[in-house]
């Protein structure tokens, strides 16, 4: 599936959920299901510091695909981290670099991408893109 197909899939999953509580319960469940990152990987260079919650991001590049693993100390953030990983992980750097992330707004969680929220999610998305842009540029050389 392409990045946008996955985003659309998530949006329709959320459309089936009724009020905010169901959406949050689903996100929390995703957060619980996302395997915790190995403690040895939770190093400062992988830490994306937010004022409220912390996010760790690890990137692997092999066979032309960029793969992400991530974690957060807050459950709702971790659920959204899981969704971002589901959308962006396992694609070519060029595709990730060019991707436009719209599903978070469509499912009504756009406040999590607000810089004032300072929960690390926006910084994580930027960091994912940075990895992709750097690798895409390298590939062009």
């Amino acid at each position: 599936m392409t990045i946008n197909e996955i985003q659309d899939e998530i949006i329709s999953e959320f459309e089936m959920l009724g009020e905010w509580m169901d959406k949050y319960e689903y996100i929390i469940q995703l957060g619980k299901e996302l395997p915790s990152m190995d403690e040895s990987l939770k190093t400062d260079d992988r830490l994306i510091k937010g004022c409220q919650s912390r996010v760790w991001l690890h990137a692997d590049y092999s066979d032309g695909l960029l793969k992400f693993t991530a974690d957060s100390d807050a459950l709702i953030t971790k659920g959204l981290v899981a969704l971002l990983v589901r959308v962006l992980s396992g694609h070519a750097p060029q595709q990730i670099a060019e991707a436009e992330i719209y599903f978070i707004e469509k499912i009504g969680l756009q406040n999590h991408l607000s810089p004032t929220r300072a929960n690390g999610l926006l910084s994580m998305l930027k960091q994912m893109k940075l990895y992709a842009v750097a690798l895409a540029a390298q590939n062009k050389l």
Partner: protein
Amino acid sequence: MENGTAHTPLLKDIAQVRQLFPILQSSVYGKPLVYFDNGATTQKPLQVIEAMDTYYRETNSNVHRGVHYLSGKATDAFEAVRKKVQRFLNAAQEHEIIYTSGTTAAINLVASSFGKKYVLPGDTIIISSIEHHANIVPWQMMAEERGASLKIIPMLPNGDLDMEAYESYLDDKVKLVAVNYVSNALGTVNPIEKIIELAHRNQIPVLIDAAQAVQHMPVDVQQLDVDFLVFSGHKMYGPTGIGVLYGKEKYLDAMPPFMGGGEMIQTVTFEKTTYQKLPFKFEAGTPAIAEVIGLGAAIDFIESIGIEAINRYETELLAYLIEALKSIPGLRFVGEPEKRAGVVSFLIGQHHPFDVGEILDKQGIAVRTGHHCAEPLMRIFNVPGTVRASVALYNTKEEVDVLVRGLRRAADMLG
């Protein structure tokens, strides 16, 4: 602007008090707003909103310099509030009241100006481990500049200050003690009478950060014999952008100006400028005039109810809140001070405060989550932050019940 006794609201008629706050009639996400983030800022009553509105409609002019009618009117209103603040704090003299933009600015003023006058290399400033960043960083900056150092009064496990340690720190190297009256993160009411008395025995002046105190309890600077006391307007039902520095004349007179500019000068030549007397020496530039008027209206509002009545009501409400929180499985308090005002900090099980806060938000309940600008304190407790509920005179027991139900729901959802 005038004293609001015309519609004196009685606290026993809380519905009537709530009617005075337009924002309390609003809904968020379709649910009635339940506002428990008063430690961050309180909501504003109509008197304050209307006083500022009326000022801009009818009085707006610059103060202290105009020859014309409006300037005189604005200056009178502006200076009348200074008298009001003087009375509110029971300060000995009007010119001991300095307008600042808030608590942070007031502390920075003292740190910089007092530091220049009195602090030498090797000297010490005492602060405590339960301070807001605003009462830590200005002292660090000053200490670094002056070659001085900070001593930090440790905290007992319950969130009270270790007074024995404090006493042992007081020696002739200490130039100032700066502590809060009430901790914004824990709600601890510090024994400032004792803190001041012990410091004074060693001829050391004391600054009290009363940002979380003046809205909850009577504060009498002469009775406390405090040397500096600071607070913000916006945490006591007034506007943002205005705060107060109270300082004893003998210190304020001796201290150099903090900022230079208009209003604070007597004569200016390119060779030498002489400064105005108090309070203007410390009020460079055009002040926040409408905000000062708003602060005056906020004091009128508080006095129309009575600070003692507010204190009694809030103490009862806080006790009810704490008992209600105890009914939530897995809830633990962060800080259980002997004496508490305004604030309760807690965590539920292993749930991240941010998650709890977000689920409360979706139910229309506003609390604060995070480190409350007290990172060193959070490190001592070894928590990423807390959930903080803070009360104001308009909160009700029914709202406490909504909060508790909301917390139970959050705990259920986070499992």
